[in-house]
């Protein structure tokens, strides 16, 4: 009896997708697309670029489905490695371009779950300030912060993803957090652009 795609392991879903099962690939996408998009979005700061990277990531794992070996690590680690490589390649390519960050202002941060409006606004401002501070970090620091602090990946998996040792990851994380903390306490450096209309019509 064939197992339902929703309960299959990631490796089995990938193999089925490579054999032409679109439903299996859709389940795999829904299972991991959020993490891929969040990683690419926080790394690049642009929603459309993150969508492109996510598309290329899933295209790459489908094209090289035989390359995944479940005995060497989890599928999510493999996926993070692919999206990390594609993101770094995109950042290198667009290094001289200025991203018109649609995620830097407070209005783009939707923080729900709090009833008090001023609490919601404060959390939104904190999130926007952190996003802005992350954009100013070097990419080797930024990626470990995203993996370990935002995506709660273990140090071992993060080290495997970025291709470094665990002490190196911990060192980068420590330095990155120090820079972020300094940026968040510095009002000038973390000034979140307030939403103001460009022009007021009479």
């Amino acid at each position, binding site marked *: 009896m064939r197992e339902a795609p929703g309960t299959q392991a990631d490796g089995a879903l990938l193999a089925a*997708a490579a054999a*032409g*099962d*679109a439903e299996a*690939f*859709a389940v795999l*996408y*829904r299972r991991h*697309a*959020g993490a891929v*998009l*969040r990683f690419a*979005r*926080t790394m690049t700061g642009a929603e459309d670029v993150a*969508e*492109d990277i*996510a*598309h*290329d*990531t*899933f*295209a*790459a794992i*489908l*094209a090289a489905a035989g390359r995944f070996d479940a005995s060497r690590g989890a599928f999510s680690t493999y996926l993070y490695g692919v999206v990390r490589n*594609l993101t770094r*390649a995109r950042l290198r390519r667009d290094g001289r371009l200025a991203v018109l960050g649609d995620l830097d202002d407070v209005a783009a*941060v*939707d*923080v*729900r*779950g709090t009833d008090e409006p001023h609490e919601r606004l404060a*959390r*939104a401002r*904190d*999130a926007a*300030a*952190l*996003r802005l501070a992350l954009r100013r970090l070097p990419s080797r620091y930024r990626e470990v912060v995203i993996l370990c*602090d*935002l995506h709660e990946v273990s140090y071992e998996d993060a080290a495997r993803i970025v291709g470094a040792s665990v002490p190196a990851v*911990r*060192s980068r*994380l*420590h330095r990155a*957090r120090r820079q*972020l*903390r300094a940026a*968040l*306490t510095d009002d000038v450096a973390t000034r979140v652009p307030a939403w103001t209309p460009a022009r007021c019509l009479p």
Partner: protein
Amino acid sequence: MTPYDEPADDRLSHAMEALRTADLQRPLPRHLERRVVALVGALPGDARDRAPASTRRRAAVARRLAWGLPAAAALAAIAVSAGWRVAAPARDAVPSMAPPVQARLESPTPVLVEAAAPVVARAPRRPRDAPASQRQERPAPPPVEPLQLVRVRMSQSDLVLLGVPVADADPSRRVDVELVVGLDGAPVGLRRIQLVAPSVP
């Protein structure tokens, strides 16, 4: 406390939690799912459409190199050989003092020469790019007949009889007309018309 231990409760932790919550609540774009799932529908074995953009670019560069390198090598070889021919002395050039044509004429071997076909005079060719109206045959000119020139003085209003209507013609005014008349006496054309001065009767 190790060097990597961080203070537990600070603004950074709150900001991390806020950003994590905000990102987790973003819905997945539906159009992206359609695009991604459509990758499976690509033809089996057509890995170019499934590969990421960077892989496609590398494959395109490799394809161009696969065709371009042999072509460039062939062009370079042609250019080098042409340059060598130009730079080398003309070995086949005929010296001016020893014409080889005469030596061939002095050969004792008889040569059988076939009779040449008679030459047929041909009309000069029309240019190919001439318009169709110019390519049509022109009509033969009319046969030439002896003509006669006749000078007459007539009323200005009578010019209409010769096919020359004059506006506001005055019957009292006279004109001298030189008529070209054929053998049958019919006018063929007008050569000259001149108004006669009023004082002339």
